[in-house]
């Protein structure tokens, strides 16, 4: 196994012959189908997760799966990579029906998957990660020199000359992803499934990844790509498969489609993320951030938030746009009391809250909906209801004891207010879809009746329908209750939705401030982001 599939061997066989063939006969080879799904269906018990899916993956091309949360993308991906087996239909690999008993089975046939959460061992080196589980054995144990040589060759092929002995934890996320790709290539993968590969990457890292993908394509590797960033995916894909509620609604070539077509097929109608609520006067200044600084946790003399000042009025919605590392998360966490400041003040309705704990700030009406709902938002061992009521326990406590009846009231009100689709308060939090989980986190904080709500990337990893619902909720809160809202985003399209004001952050400072009538290009230019066509 190890000797057959070493990159060295692959190199020798593929490069001299295939490189020329691909370059010459591009048109001809492009049409070769490597993988097809024929009437693939999957059900779990009585629940049909996937119905009659048909599509082809072409050699050296990118096929993107589009769809909302719960549309069946993950199920399909798991079927293609051998994690689960279809209940009906078949998978054809180069025209032959195949059945993968496991992921190793699929990998043996040349199909590898790169998960959203990378599966590297951070403490091990790049070399050890690439050869994990299939070490090259020499006469005196593992042949480290040979492994390192092959690793170096692989990384050079991918134009990312990382030293093979670098521990993976020292690499940036984008580089780690490339190590995963190198690992997939080292087992001779012909088909690479990439699940949300760009979700944690910065714009420049995405560029590197896309260059690698183009490079892979030119070498005849087929890619199955899954992403929530529709625009981004459109720049790289050759084919689009759109799923909705487990049914394939559309399948087309890139040349025939545009963004609107995808969205229409994903959600079944034209979608709009809303507009700034109007028809009322903004109130007093609700939150005032004055000259706030936050020190970098690793390099203390550097500031991730650098003498930043910002005011938000009651009823106002402010969008905080910026690239990864611009300091948005640190700013919001500092205002909420999670991270200590190294200077400056935070005032809530005129009162200095800089020295209060998170709990005290919540009590005063300043709440944060964190970015990573799995890590910071939800208690996975608790039910939907217990999660919703966690921040407002005081509201249903009388004397020493909590009141079950009053808690039910709080929870049911929240479920209704933020429109959570659930079997009831006792349902497990894990049984909800991503969008509904996000609504639980938002609902939990709104149940404390705040004056100022901070939301860090509230739309991360949720589908466009849920996104629109979340924004609508915030717009209603601002208009009817005079909530002051700050939400951060890294999708420029979301800036131009419900925000009255767009604040662009870059390197811990405010780089620019715009009204709602600004264009995407201007926002991106202010953030220091190259404008991608």
């Amino acid at each position: 196994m190890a000797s057959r599939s070493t990159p060295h061997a692959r190199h020798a066989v593929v490069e001299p012959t295939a490189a020329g063939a691909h370059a010459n006969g591009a048109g001809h080879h492009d049409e070769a189908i490597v993988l097809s799904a024929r009437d693939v269906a999957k059900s779990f018990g009585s629940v049909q997760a996937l119905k009659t899916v048909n599509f082809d993956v072409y050699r050296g091309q990118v096929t993107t799966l589009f769809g909302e949360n719960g549309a069946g993308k993950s199920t399909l991906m798991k079927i293609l990579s051998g994690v689960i087996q279809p209940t009906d239909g078949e998978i054809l690999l180069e025209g032959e029906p195949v059945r993968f008993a496991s992921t190793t089975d699929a990998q043996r046939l040349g199909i590898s998957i790169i998960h959203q959460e990378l599966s590297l061992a951070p403490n091990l080196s790049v070399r050890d990660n690439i050869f994990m589980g299939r070490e090259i054995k020499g006469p005196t144990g593992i042949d480290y020199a040979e492994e390192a040589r092959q690793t170096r060759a692989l990384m050079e092929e991918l134009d990312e000359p990382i030293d093979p002995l670098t521990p993976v934890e020292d690499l940036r996320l984008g580089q780690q992803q490339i190590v995963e790709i190198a690992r997939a290539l080292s087992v001779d993968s012909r088909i690479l499934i990439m699940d949300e590969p760009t979700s944690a990457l910065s714009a420049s890292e995405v560029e590197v990844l896309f260059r690698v993908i183009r490079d892979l394509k030119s070498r005849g590797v087929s890619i199955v790509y899954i992403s929530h960033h529709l625009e981004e995916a459109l720049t790289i894909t050759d084919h689009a498969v759109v799923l909705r509620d487990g049914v394939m609604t559309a399948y087309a070539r890139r040349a025939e489609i545009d963004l609107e077509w995808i969205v229409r097929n994903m959600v079944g109608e034209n979608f709009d993320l809303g507009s700034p609520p109007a028809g009322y006067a903004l109130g007093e200044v609700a939150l005032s951030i004055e000259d706030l600084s936050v020190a970098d946790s690793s390099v203390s003399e550097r500031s991730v938030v650098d003498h930043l000042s910002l005011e938000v009025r009651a009823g106002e919605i402010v969008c905080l746009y910026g690239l990864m590392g611009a300091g948005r998360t640190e700013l919001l966490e500092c205002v909420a009391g999670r991270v200590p400041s190294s200077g400056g003040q935070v005032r809530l309705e005129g009162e200095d809250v800089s020295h209060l704990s998170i709990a005290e700030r919540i009590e005063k009406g300043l709440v944060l909906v964190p970015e990573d709902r799995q890590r910071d938002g939800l208690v996975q061992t608790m039910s939907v209801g217990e999660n919703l009521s966690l921040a407002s326990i005081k509201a249903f406590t009388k004397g020493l004891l909590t009141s079950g009846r009053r808690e039910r009231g709080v929870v049911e009100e929240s479920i209704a207010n933020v429109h959570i689709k659930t079997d009831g308060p006792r349902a497990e939090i894990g049984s909800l879809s991503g969008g509904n989980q996000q609504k639980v986190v938002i609902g939990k904080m709104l149940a404390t009746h705040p004056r100022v709500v901070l939301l860090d990337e509230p739309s991360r990893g949720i589908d466009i329908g849920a996104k629109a619902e979340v924004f609508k909720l915030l717009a209603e809160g601002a208009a009817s209750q005079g909530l002051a809202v700050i939400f951060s985003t890294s999708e420029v399209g979301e800036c131009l939705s419900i925000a009255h004001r767009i604040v662009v952050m870059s390197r811990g400072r405010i780089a620019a401030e715009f009204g709602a009538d600004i264009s995407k290009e201007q926002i991106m230019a202010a953030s220091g982001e190259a404008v991608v066509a």
Partner: protein
Amino acid sequence: MSKQRQAPVRQRGGFDLGRLLLEGRAFFALIAIIVIFSLLSPVYFTTNNFLTMSSHVAIFGLLSIGMLLVILTGGIDLSVGSTLGLAGVVAGFLMQGVTFDLFGVTLYPPVWVVVILTCGVGALIGAINGVLIAYFKVPAFVATLGLLYVARGVALLMTDGLTYNNLGGQPELGNTGFDWLGFNRLLGVPVGVWVLALVAIVTLLALARTPFGRWVYSTGGNARAAELSGVPVKRVQVSVYVLSGICAAIAGLVLSSQLTSAGPTAGTTYELTAIAGVVIGGAALTGGRGNVRGTLLGAFVIGFLSDGLVIIGVSSYWQTVFTGAVIVLAVLLNSIQYGGRRKRAAPASPSSPASAPPSTTDREPAAADGKSAGKPAVQH
């Protein structure tokens, strides 16, 4: 796979023996133990034996309930056995009278003062544990392991390795009544058992019906999320170790009263028995899952099993083997239960496929450990 698909079908039938046995495993294990030992020995199933066994269980039960609180927050407390020993020694020391050389007087504190001071010692050890863990970020395993040695060492130092045998007190000194803590019986039941019952009820109420209980569960389930929801996570962590220390001190008082002596080596390795009781009771060592009822059953399983083995005359070496096997089996069943958790969510709602289609794919089988049970629901 096939097994996972069948599970909902079976449950729809209304009766699922496997699931019933799994969920009530500690209870059924206890019944099985009682039945088996009653068949093997005529003295096992007698009121007297049950009372004796119960007073043994009282010790494990008290330690296990304190341990449960700690484990629910995702921690562990290895110092409870030593705390128990130190508490007994402190009580014994106080019962002998405290001499103040400076004033040339010897004070004989009454028993209620002894009880309070002893509990204070337990609380202090717990507070040191809690502060080290919550504020200085020392891993719970290491911090409490350190206190395990320190507390034991202090107990040995205080007594020079000897045992206090005279705990009875004297009527003229006004410090009698120590027997009453564990040795005596109330309504025919050993006082230790009453103490356990009281502690269990208070803990049960605290966990189920107070904000503190909710904080404990949320801290263990996801401390970061709890903190951002305004839960005073650090105070909760300190509190559970303090409570665990107090429970251990109470257990120490009950034990030295039962034995009418207080030795510095009492309670050695009891921390492991306490952890075993919690685990057999179905709590997850990763935190956030578990309850008082299960833990009590766990303590009874361990106590009744080891006493049963003694009664039928199995060698103490074999007792160790049996106890170990039961613990491993319990953990095994725990992982089966929490691994299967998400699959059960699906059939619980026959009407839901129509009303909530977006969540359908979330019901895919998840990874088999409780920790990741919530995770796979992120849909792409």
